[in-house]
């Protein structure tokens, strides 16, 4: 334990701001992945372990677009759309067959797709670690604020993350389509009686969740090596966030992703040997006290 480090940092606005930014950055990419997972879990009731692989495919698509066009903005649009289409195909041909089945069947099928996707990326892109350069727009001196520095790309990540939270929330709560998705989550039979094509809604939701994973993968590209199996690194943490936040709650996912990021960035200061343990202890407590998650009752 290094409590002195933690206290010193809390007393120093520059240090505290730096760690807060670090925590928010961890939270943003995780939120994008976890929000798609939460949507799929909340509406479709599907334990999608292959969600991390969709994030990985987003990163590989981004790499390909960058390698051929060299424009990160275009990659940021095309790669998630590509992942969304992959998600739609996956749902139409395979996933829809395990709706309503025991969680074990869902787990087996989605786990199988983790292995399949890993082999597919090895086949297409090879086994070597790939990476992309920081887009030229963001290769500029970091911004200095409150005694700390904030890299320009991190500011962009924060803005994109917040915009997406607002956009998803507006879409789900204020639009007709969002209301249909909400209805599909709570009473699909009734929705079907009203003439809505529920299987189609499910496909769209799965595609949307996949697209969000793709956004996460695309945004992570300039910061991480692109490797087969990179989805493993985010899927467990995303599940933890969704479980604590409340399955299907986008607000819960966002708040808990932020908590997760901050607990990690400050935990590293004070408890570098076991900072990860905190979040799991927290999850255990939440599951005992509030099994539906912190925002479990908040409808998406």
């Amino acid at each position, binding site marked *: 334990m*290094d409590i002195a*480090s933690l206290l010193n*940092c809390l007393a*120093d606005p*520059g*240090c505290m701001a*730096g*760690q807060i*930014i*670090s*925590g928010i*950055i*961890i939270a943003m*990419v995780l939120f994008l992945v976890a929000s798609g997972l939460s949507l799929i879990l909340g509406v479709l009731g599907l334990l999608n372990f292959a969600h991390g692989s969709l994030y990985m495919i987003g990163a590989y698509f981004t790499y390909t677009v960058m390698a051929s066009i060299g424009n990160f903005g275009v990659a940021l649009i095309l790669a998630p759309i590509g992942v969304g289409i992959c998600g739609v195909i996956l749902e139409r041909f395979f996933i829809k067959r395990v709706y309503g089945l025991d969680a074990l069947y869902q787990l087996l099928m989605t786990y199988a797709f983790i*292995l399949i996707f*890993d*082999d597919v990326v*090895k086949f297409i892109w090879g*086994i*070597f*670690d*790939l*990476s*992309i*350069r*920081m887009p030229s727009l963001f290769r500029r001196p*970091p911004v200095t604020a409150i005694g*700390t*520095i904030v*890299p320009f*790309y*991190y500011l962009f990540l924060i803005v994109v993350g917040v915009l997406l939270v607002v956009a998803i929330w507006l879409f789900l709560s204020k639009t007709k389509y969002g209301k249909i998705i909400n209805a599909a989550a709570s009473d699909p039979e009734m929705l079907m009686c009203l003439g809505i094509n529920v299987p189609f809604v499910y496909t769209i939701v799965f595609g949307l969740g996949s697209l969000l994973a793709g956004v996460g993968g695309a945004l*992570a590209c*300039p*910061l*991480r*090596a692109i*490797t*087969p*199996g*990179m989805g*493993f*690194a*985010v899927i467990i943490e995303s599940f933890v966030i969704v479980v604590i936040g409340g399955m299907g709650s986008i607000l819960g996912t966002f708040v808990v992703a932020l908590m997760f990021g901050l607990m*990690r*960035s400050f935990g*590293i*200061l004070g408890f*570098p*040997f076991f900072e*990860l343990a905190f979040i799991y202890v927290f999850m255990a407590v939440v599951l005992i006290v509030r099994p539906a998650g912190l925002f479990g009752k908040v409808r998406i």
Partner: protein
Amino acid sequence: MMSKNKKEKMAGKGLTRREFLKASAGGAAGVAVAPYFAPRLAYGQKPIHVRCHSIYGGKAAVLGRSVTDGVNMWKDEVNRKGGILGRHVVTSFRDTRGKTEEAVRLAREAAASGEVDLLLDSCSSREAFAVKEVSRDLNFIIIATNSKTTELTANPKTRAPYHFRSAAQNLHDMAAGAKYAAGLAKKHGWTKWATIAPDYAYGRENAMFFIRFLKMYFPEAEILMELWPKLWEPDFTPYVTKMLGAKTQAVFTSQWGGDVVALLQQGALYGLHEKVKIFSIDLGDFTAINPVIKAFGKLPEGIYMGTRANPLTPATKLNRDWFNGFKKTYGYEPSGWSQQAYSGLLFYQKAVEKAGSTDQKAVRDALAGLEIVAPWGSPPEQKLALRASDHTNILYTEAWGKTVNKMPYVADVLTLSWDDIFKAEKEYFKEKGWV
């Protein structure tokens, strides 16, 4: 029914369809079984079967592939020269998927099959300790080619008589690395240090050794923090900000593969490698160098790194030829894992020749204390040895240098002395009661 003319047109020169089909089937069968019978036909003896277990999936897939190519490179060289004891060499590979239970199952299966003569365990430390017990249980030789964890072979209480290691070792790497770092730290006054290492056996052990030996060579060094991101950690930003916040002057890291790439990518946003001197034991591997170059457009200069599987370490013709031969054959640079698997096979080759057979006991007796010449053996003799007392590989080139943006990406290479390494090792063993 096909007309006679058509039949003739199809087969050409009067060959009937029946004859054509027979010839095709015979040819196909011949092609299919030829690889199996060819060794017997060539040498009239059963081939020597080398089995290699490695990781071919997930993030370590690139390393598994580089092991396979290192093994096949050795096999082709040996077979071109007539095999071992006049016997052709065949290889086979199995994927442990990085799972200990699978590594144990495969090792047990290979040892009990009666089909495998020589076995390589080319996985990580996590699997190596469990696989060692298979060797002990079945009295079957297993050479661990990747596990660097010192305890694997150093602790006399847990040694297994048929178990060997051709991998480099954390204690040796860190004794060398810390001496190199201490020399520079003394010269430049870098007293405030941090370590950042992956949170599992390999990272824990080498950070511990680095700190121990750094303080031994440079007592003024102060360790401000020890950081332990989990293996495959995607987010290094809080670690970077913590190091910068504490005004760290120098950091040792054993992050490897994609992790060292991510650390440098995220660190670069804060100017990490300009503000803090980085000493990386694993950046020197081309599996890390290449993606770092892609991420930055060039290799950032001035990072201190351990260097292995590099034509400059050592800068001899033998090593250069091996490196270039590998690259030419497989289209990419070898990794440390390819090199260490190749070492294991060189040891096996000489031991079988010395023993005159592949009998496990005879080969084991030949392996203990065996010396070979290898491309990365310490110059000038370029010898490697499997020390008889603890069955571990010694005398490989221990070198560090500074990154430059030009192939082979390292300059100012300093090769560390094994006398110093042995001295540091002896003191540690004495303290642990392992002498």
